[in-house]
């Protein structure tokens, strides 16, 4: 059952091939057996899941089941879940149990999805390797000595290891697309404003966007149809009808104009990765698409601009974690300053502290114009690059990241090398554009991701394009070895 896609699971549930309780038990058993090998799931909500599954089975039996009724899934631990610890991968929130749901969590609940638990992540979504999590690193199911990418590494690894057919994730600078690429799954970061940020713990508010991770574009379409909604609790959420993303997946892509940015195929790109991406482009050409060479001249400025804007916003967003009202508080503070400084020094990890300091510095009197002001100007230029490009093309394609999954610790000492991991993904966040990653090959037995960037609110087209690619290729169907339970007992047997 764990090799079935969400689309297939929905069919199976509706045709009573299996029940949601069976399915839920199956995935819970897989998590119990396999998660220790990946550390992808940090909170398991088995009791609630089984209750929800039983309720879903009743609705399925009654014949009035909503879209995702009975389908098990996981939430990234950045989404607040009423009554269930929401840690954001941090010691700071290790004891935090929200009394409310994120809108995304509500949306899946209303669609009848069954939540198995919460996934590991880089602390406060700051990282590209999942090494900054308070709960320890997530291991890449394709190569357990390698990182799964970050910050949504737990969600990506869980989906790759078939611990759940789909998971929610968030993307501030590549946190959906990069781990999706490194774990060989499909992930979509929607247009800024498409998915509500209410209850999604903020890293950099003007860049953060929630999105789906699953094995196929078709599954991402099903998830996004549920995940996206207008929400008056989020002022930056756009009041715009949510299309049925599944409805347009089958459209032929003949005549599609694909922009190929020169800047995305320059130095630093792994040759194997380049080869895989070029092969994918050739496949699109074979299906009748037209490749158009384009330029995004300000690409090189995106990483520096991002590492001013994102930390600046984060430095304010994370001020609320002060030990006063909730979360971690240091032992026996001797005065207010001691309370603040020790709570935050002990509660935040190194990378989070680094970014708070960078952000604080960039916003300081005398530095604001040179850093934050300039970064905002660069952001406009980057946005303009895309606006110009989309006058000539329908989608833009290139690699999701420069190379396949790297080994643990290999970039740990060099923050800048780590930041360059997001060189191809960051620009779309700065521009607010949607982007996705689709498996397109293997290098050194590790997956490679093709990035598809779309115009504003053009997710339906991106999903259609990705689906057409997946109809003709098998990369998304590959499974890492070792994802059957290590003791040889299959998950199904364990569940029964």
């Amino acid at each position, binding site marked *: 059952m764990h090799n079935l896609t969400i689309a297939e699971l929905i069919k199976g549930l509706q045709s009573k091939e299996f029940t949601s309780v069976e399915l839920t038990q199956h995935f819970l058993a897989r998590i119990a057996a396999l998660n220790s090998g990946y550390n992808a799931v940090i909170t398991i909500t088995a009791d609630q899941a089984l209750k929800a599954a039983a309720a879903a089975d009743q609705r399925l039996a009654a014949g009035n089941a909503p879209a995702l009724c009975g389908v098990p899934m996981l939430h990234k631990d950045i*989404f*607040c879940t009423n009554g269930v610890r*929401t840690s*954001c991968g941090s010691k700071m*929130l290790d004891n*935090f149990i*929200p*009394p*409310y749901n*994120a809108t995304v969590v509500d949306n899946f609940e209303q669609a009848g999805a069954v939540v198995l638990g919460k996934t590991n992540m880089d602390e406060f979504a700051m990282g590209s390797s999942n090494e900054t999590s308070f709960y320890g690193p997530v291991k890449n199911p394709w190569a357990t000595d390698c990182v799964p990418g970050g910050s949504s590494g737990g969600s990506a690894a869980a989906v790759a290891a078939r611990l759940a057919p789909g998971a929610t994730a968030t993307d501030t600078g590549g946190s959906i697309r990069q781990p999706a690429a490194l774990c060989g799954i499909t992930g979509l970061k929607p247009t800024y404003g498409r998915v509500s*940020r*209410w*209850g*999604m*713990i*903020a890293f*950099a*508010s*003007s860049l953060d966007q929630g999105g789906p991770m699953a094995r196929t574009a078709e599954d991402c379409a099903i998830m996004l149809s549920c995940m996206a909604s207008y929400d*008056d*609790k*989020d*002022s*930056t959420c756009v009041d715009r009808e949510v299309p049925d993303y599944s409805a347009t997946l089958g459209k032929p892509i003949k005549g599609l104009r694909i922009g190929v940015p020169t800047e995305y195929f320059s130095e630093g790109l792994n040759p194997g990765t380049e080869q895989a991406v070029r092969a994918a482009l050739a496949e699109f050409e074979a299906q009748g698409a037209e490749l158009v060479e384009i330029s995004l001249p300000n690409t090189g400025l995106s990483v520096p601009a991002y590492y001013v804007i994102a930390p*600046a*916003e984060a*430095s*304010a967003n*994370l*001020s*609320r*974690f*002060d030990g*006063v*009202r*909730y979360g971690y508080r240091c032992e026996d503070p001797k005065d*207010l300053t001691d309370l*603040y400084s020790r709570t935050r020094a002990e509660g935040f990890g190194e990378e989070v502290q680094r970014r708070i300091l960078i952000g*604080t510095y960039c*916003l*300081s*009197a005398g530095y*604001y114009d040179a850093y*934050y002001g300039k970064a905002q100007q660069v952001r406009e230029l980057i946005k303009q690059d895309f606006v110009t490009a989309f006058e000539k093309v329908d989608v833009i394609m290139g690699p999701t990241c420069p190379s396949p999954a790297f080994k643990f610790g290999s970039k740990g000492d060099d923050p800048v090398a780590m930041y360059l991991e997001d060189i191809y993904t960051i620009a779309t966040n700065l521009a607010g554009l949607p982007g996705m990653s689709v498996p397109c090959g293997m290098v050194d037995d590790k997956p490679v991701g093709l990035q598809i960037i779309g115009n504003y609110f053009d997710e339906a087209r991106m999903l259609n394009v990705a689906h057409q690619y997946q109809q003709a290729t098998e990369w998304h169907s590959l499974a890492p070895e070792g994802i059957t339970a290590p003791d040889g007992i299959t998950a199904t047997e364990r569940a029964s």
Partner: protein
Amino acid sequence: MSNSGWETVIGLEVHVQLATKTKIFSGASTTYGAEPNTQACAIDLAMPGTLPVLNKQAVHYAVMFGLAIDAEIGKESAFERKNYFYPDLPKGYQTTQLEKPIVGRGNVEIQMADGRTKNVRIHHAHLEEDAGKSLHEGDFRHGVSGIDLNRAGTPLIEIVSEPDMSNAEEAIAFAKKLHSIVTSIGICDGEMSQGSMRFDVNVSVRRTGTTELGTRTETKNLNSYKFMEEAIAKEVERQIDLIEDGGTVLQETRLYNGDTKVARSMRSKEEANDYRYFPCPDLLPVIVSDETIEELRRNLPELPDARQARFIEQYGLSAYDAAMIGSDAAMAAYFETATKESGNAKLAANWTMGELAARLNSEDLSINKSPVNAEQLGGLVARIADNSISGKMAKEVFEGMWAGEGSADEIIEARGLKQVSDSGALEQMVADVLAANQAMVDDYINTDEAKRKKKLGGFMGKIMQASKGQANPQQVNQILVQKLNELV
């Protein structure tokens, strides 16, 4: 010490709590005086993942203030984050406006006691959220501090004046005028004791005749005119003494404790926070359409200046009375109701400003909390106007109404206070008194005509005594003179 040879320059920053039902960025109630932390929701507590949604009513109120002072309205204003750590500031930043405030330059005309007027320029007014309250030793349990977040997120406009005032009288006239405007247009309840209006006073001094501004200090959070006056006086004196003794004034933030009368430095410029303002990414720019501005302008309640002019015109009040009553929205409404009820504006004005105001003042009550409502006072004024009761009786009736004994008519009836105006009865009363006091009558007759008037008081006393004070004095006087003259 003398202030001669010195000029004072004063500018004000005024925080006005807007009278919205809910907070500026959340749906929690803004009602004053609830149990601590019962009016703070997840957003006010800055729980992770929560987001602000702007209260449209607060925006409209701010625009109304802008229209009231004839200011430029920021058609596209924006919120910024002002970063600093304090336990009563849950997010670790205050959401406020800096670069693009909702209200731009405007003007407020103030009037001094001697009738002199002056224009105070408004630099801008911006929307922001209030912080919570920290309760320290004395207000809270021994050895711990408490945080009450009920106030956190209450909408404020901060009105920033130019340094156009040159003494405490002008500063207070300006503060009172702002109070008058915001209560008249209904955007603030004006309850200063509850912190609905708070004043930060920027003061500097310079030698008379010089034009360069001296170094200013800011005394924060004054919530009464009296404290403002005291704080300004103390600060002016401190600065002059300091300079005359060869020192220099340091730019600093100061606090004044109105109870202990002690002023002290809170922090110097060097210790000032770097607030690291930047645009709040959780909120969109605030766009106010021309249609909305015009609609708010059309529906803007009467402003104090217009109301005062109308009171002179419509009710024949003196300029002084019109200013006294017309500047306070609640008092003006009270007066108009009492006038309508009694049909006598002059008497209604006298009673509103006189007996009522004095009594409210002595019991520290706002007019909205008056035990005697406007209809009741109007009822009393009506009985004075139609001579049913004398002024002296009226005071007794007022006391009865204050004590909750009912309407004027009910009290007059219950206490038998009705004035005797029946001329037949009064003539008999006068005749009886004259007959019983022949010696006084003879004395009157034998007095020179020019001095007879002085003798009337004695008769009046006896007649009023005989009537137990209920005889209408004007009528008695008339009958008495007539009868005595018949005897001469």
